[in-house]
């Protein structure tokens, strides 16, 4: 019965009630939208950071995990590559060789990263193959042919590196690499493509070349430094990680000289700063909830106190005809709760709707920068950020407002319960 009374009471002052609800609703919309933006930003961040260089998961030797140098390699088993590719949720596996060497011409040279990849496998793992700005991605080698049968080895250069060296498509470069046996390997390279991946470290200083050619120049035949896995859905990463770990435990390949057992590492371990940053922003969302709702809460508290004050005589009569003080308090509590919950329901609906719209049309990130492109921590973002509308963006604000509602309802309810019937009817309080 007092719920019914509460509803009636709320709408006795329609304008005030609607204003209060609108305030809370606006706060909720803001929070849901901010949550959506943050989610989308973090997702884009992780996807950007893992799209080219790191991948979502990597298999590497223990020694390489501790120290990423050329000597900590492992024997590459195509059987293992196939087994990992077959795991649900894995879209691609690309074994890679990582070298540092001197690349240049008679006039200019630079120390660069050289990444040896299987052109086809790399295409299924990283964005680089589709981020070719000029020319083409590496051609897969005919089986059995020598890596440099044509006299030179095809390479794809990061855009900044190509500029630095002053070379374009079709130009030749010389490569010197200190191999694992100490030998100074040399190779003639031919630029077939220039990539703009959006990953600063790749674009400024990386050379992609055929895996076999990279192995040969560094005396690393049949070996690799890591295998990068592409797991398109970030939510699947943990599950896939467990499966790969199980697979590695059961089929540990003979590793020879190099670096201990193979391990699987997720992007969170490979990019700890990024993982920490995401964790920190998630935590800070709660602080934002609190701030926004404290402000909204003060509004509600004010409304409810006012309305309770106005109805003091009424309360006195209710007490006089025998309504227990407890029920009077419960009625006031329900009023506050109803008032507080209507706002978030409206706000969450609107917020989800807006996130849904942004998930279709995208949010223009370019408005944050004058150059028209936006990049953060070495990762370039797409011009438009696409949200994902999900219920997880809603429960946080709902819980927070419920807490605030209860807190705001307690004060007027308690003061009403303490009323003296006679004095309040007489208006002498």
């Amino acid at each position: 019965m007092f719920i019914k009374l509460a509803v009636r009471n709320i709408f006795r002052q329609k304008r005030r009630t609607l204003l209060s609800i609108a305030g809370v609703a606006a706060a909720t919309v803001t929070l849901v939208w901010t949550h959506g933006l943050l989610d989308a930003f973090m997702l884009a961040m992780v996807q950007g950071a893992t799209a080219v260089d790191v991948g979502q998961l990597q298999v590497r030797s223990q020694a390489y995990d501790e120290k990423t140098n050329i000597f900590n390699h492992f024997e590459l088993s195509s059987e293992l590559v196939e087994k990992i590719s077959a795991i649900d949720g894995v879209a691609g596996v690309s074994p890679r060789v990582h070298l540092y060497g001197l690349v240049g011409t008679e006039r200019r040279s630079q120390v660069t990263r050289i990444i040896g990849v299987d052109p086809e496998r790399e295409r299924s793992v990283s964005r680089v193959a589709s981020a070719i700005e000029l020319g083409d991605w590496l051609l897969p080698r005919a089986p059995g042919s020598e890596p440099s049968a044509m006299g030179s080895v095809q390479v794809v250069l990061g855009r900044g590196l190509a500029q630095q060296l002053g070379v374009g498509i079709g130009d030749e470069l010389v490569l010197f690499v200190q191999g694992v046996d100490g030998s100074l390997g040399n190779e003639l390279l031919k630029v077939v493509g220039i990539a703009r991946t959006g990953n600063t470290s790749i674009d400024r200083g990386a050379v992609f070349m055929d895996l076999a050619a990279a192995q040969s120049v560094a005396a690393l035949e049949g070996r690799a430094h890591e295998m990068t896995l592409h797991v398109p859905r970030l939510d699947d990463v943990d599950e896939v990680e467990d499966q790969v770990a199980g697979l590695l435990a059961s089929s540990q390949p003979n590793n020879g000289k190099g670096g201990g057992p193979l391990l699987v590492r997720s992007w969170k371990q490979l990019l700890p700063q990024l993982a920490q940053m995401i964790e920190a922003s998630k935590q800070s969302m709660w602080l934002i909830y609190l701030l926004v709702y404290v402000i909204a809460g003060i509004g509600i508290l004010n409304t409810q106190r006012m309305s309770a004050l106005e109805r003091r005589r009424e309360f006195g009569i209710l007490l006089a005809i025998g309504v227990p003080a407890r029920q009077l308090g419960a009625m006031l509590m329900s009023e506050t709760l109803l008032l507080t919950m209507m706002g978030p329901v409206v706000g969450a609906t609107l917020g989800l709707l807006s996130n849904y719209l942004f998930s279709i049309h995208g949010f223009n990130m370019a408005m944050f920068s004058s150059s028209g492109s936006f990049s953060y921590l070495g990762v370039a973002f797409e011009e438009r950020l696409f949200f994902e509308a999900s219920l997880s963006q809603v429960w946080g604000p709902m819980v927070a407002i419920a807490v605030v509602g209860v807190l705001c309802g307690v004060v007027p309810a308690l003061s009403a319960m303490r009323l003296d019937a006679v004095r309040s009817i007489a208006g002498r309080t």
Partner: protein
Amino acid sequence: MNQPRILICCLLLCLLVPAVSFAQDPLPSVDELVQHFDQLYRSSSSYAKMRMQISTADYQRELELELWTKGEDNALAVLRAPAKEAGTATLRSADGLWNYAPKADRLMRIPSGMLSEGWMGSHFSNDDLMSESSWVEDYDTQLERVEEGGEGLIRMTATPKKDAAVVYTKVLHFVTAKDWIPVRSEYYDDDALVRTLSYTGVTDFGDRKLPAVLELVPADKNNEYTRMEYTWLEFELEVDDALFTARGLRKVAK
């Protein structure tokens, strides 16, 4: 008068001076000794064959190479063995430093930042081998007489001049006092010993007596070393200037 006293003083002095000079020869002039040291293995021109043994935690390897120098600016080192790398060469001329890639048949300029990098996987740097820096031009040197194991040595303390592009804060060279044959060089960075180069196996190369074996031991790495042995060394021979060009290099490297 005071004359007798002065006479006595003079007499005493005359007696003292030879006594001092008998005990120790006067130190050579800094310029003379440093000049000598700078030109030790190169002179105005030189040709050498050497073997290099490299031992690191990650690999062992043995190289054979030929080295030509002329004047202060020109040097050419060509790798002859192992076969896989034969023909790889490093050229220094007045214009800069290049590596030659035999497989690609191309030269590539080595950026100056790579000067202190190891040459061909050894502990010797590009600078050590190609003598980009000079003891005369880049360092201030002081001499001091020391004794080690009963042998009289001269210690040359070389500190880099202000603008010299060198990586060490101090280098100590020890040479025998008698005939200036190098014994050991110690390289320091911020008072910490970084590496030691020791010279052994003194051999007659024509009219010069020089240590044939140079062993470089980095201080911070266990059991690592590069040992370089001159198997042939001659000086003041005719070396064509054209050798220190891309074309000249290709001719000898192939």
